[in-house]
């Protein structure tokens, strides 16, 4: 589904974020990418949602190379991918409902579909009773649930989560992790980047360890051992 073919990513001033990465993620997988800050976790995710382009090598998504993706097609690629971030990236002036509905509106979905799907998704993440609240009226865990609902609304093939629990307390972190595992069970690929050892070990799924831009460990039922 997602394949990295000898991918190297250098930023300006020759800083190498990823160094010759070969990697394949198959349908239905749940993958944790771990490593210290600056190890290249975020860059790996950015290459998948085509926010950055590789300096060398090619990233394939559903067998399509992403380096040739045109500006016109980029929005359609993004609709196959749901993104979740540490800092939520919610629109502060929109309610929970509007934040989720927005993702459907931009793709030109009809109003009826929006009115039907958004409450369903919000129900899945357990926020059915808080649809009309603004982000500032919700806890961090609840805000992250809206983000996940927004990521799910396009019924994406992949959910990418960059430090999804970075701003949350341990209990909320566990809840978010449970939610991501549940989504994975329903058939969506989930890739999370994190350095939260506890939640990753709880999942006991595939773990890829990055260090200085290189994969140093890739276990099917891995544990994140290095502190």
């Amino acid at each position: 589904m997602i394949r990295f073919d000898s991918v190297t990513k250098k930023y300006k001033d020759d800083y190498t974020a990823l160094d010759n990465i070969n990697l394949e993620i198959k349908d239905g997988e749940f993958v944790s990418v771990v490593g210290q800050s600056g190890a290249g976790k975020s860059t790996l995710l950015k290459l998948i949602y085509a926010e950055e382009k590789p300096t060398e090598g090619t990233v394939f998504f559903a067998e399509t190379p992403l380096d040739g993706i045109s500006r016109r097609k980029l929005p359609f690629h993004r609709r196959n991918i749901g993104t979740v971030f540490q800092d939520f990236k919610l629109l502060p002036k929109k309610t929970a409902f509007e934040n989720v509905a927005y993702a459907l509106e931009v793709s030109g979905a009809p109003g009826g579909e929006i009115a039907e799907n958004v409450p369903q998704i919000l129900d899945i993440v357990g926020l059915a009773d808080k649809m009309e609240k603004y982000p500032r009226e919700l806890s961090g865990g609840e805000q992250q649930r809206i983000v996940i609902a927004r990521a799910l609304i396009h019924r994406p093939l992949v959910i990418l989560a960059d430090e999804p629990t970075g701003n949350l307390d341990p209990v909320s972190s566990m809840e978010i992790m449970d939610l991501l595992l549940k989504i994975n069970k329903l058939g969506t690929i989930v890739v999370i980047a994190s350095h939260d050892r506890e939640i990753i070990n709880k999942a006991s799924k595939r773990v890829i360890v990055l260090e200085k831009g290189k994969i140093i460990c890739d276990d099917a039922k891995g544990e994140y051992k290095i502190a």
Partner: protein
Amino acid sequence: MFLIFIRTFKESFKNFWRNGSLSVAAVSILALTLFIMSVIFVLVVTGNDVLKSIQQKSNITVYFKSDISEEDILKVKQDLGNYKEIKSADYVSKDEALGNFKKSNADNQIILKALEEIGGNPLLPSLVVKANDSSKYDSIANYISTAPFKDNVSRINYDRNKEVIGKLNDLVSEYKKIGLGIAILFSIIAILITFNTIRITIYTQKQEIEVMRLVGASNLYIRLPFIFEGITYALVASVISMVLLFLTFKFAPNYVATKIIPSGALLSYYYHGFFAILGLQILAGAVLGIFSGLIAIRKYLKI
């Protein structure tokens, strides 16, 4: 496509209200810009009109000796009519000249009495000559003073008017240059300020733009609300500027010496060109608003 338009239009309208003070800032700057540009524009245009009308009033008068017959003068008139720089040559007979003189001095008993004392008609018959272009009076005067009928001519009053006409010509060209210079200068300043204000407005929405891109909004979908916002700014700013313009033209002439521009002229010009001015303002405002917006978003769209 239609759905996109409706949605982005709504979005832009919400943005306009939710941004509150920033919208107010952008609109007031834009309104001021349009106002300044309009005032300068109107002043240049009306000023030009006034100068033109003064130019049209200027003339040179050719006085003939009192014993020259009307027939001869009319011949000269015909002759002058063929000269290409001359727009018109009007004959004023001795009797007409006297009538005009009496009329213009009707209040002045001393002069009228003096006239009676002299007896008869001391005035000379004349041709009032107008040129197509006021800068050509010099050559016309030359032509008349060297023409075959020059012996019939008593005097030409060009020398007296020469200075005034010359000054007027200088004034017209100076006025055009200075007016244009000021207009350009102020426009540039105003455009830069407007541009920056709108950029700041958009800068505060960069998070929104980032989120839009992440959830797969097309670039068009991201841009449209800003385009509509630019148009909304322009509409509101134009209305404000029109009101300001009206107040200025109505009351300002009372405080400013208006020897050159008659006080009613500005206001009548305003009424006369109301839709033209409004249309131009909306157009200029929209162009400014939309372009500032598009340039500012470019950065966040990563084009």
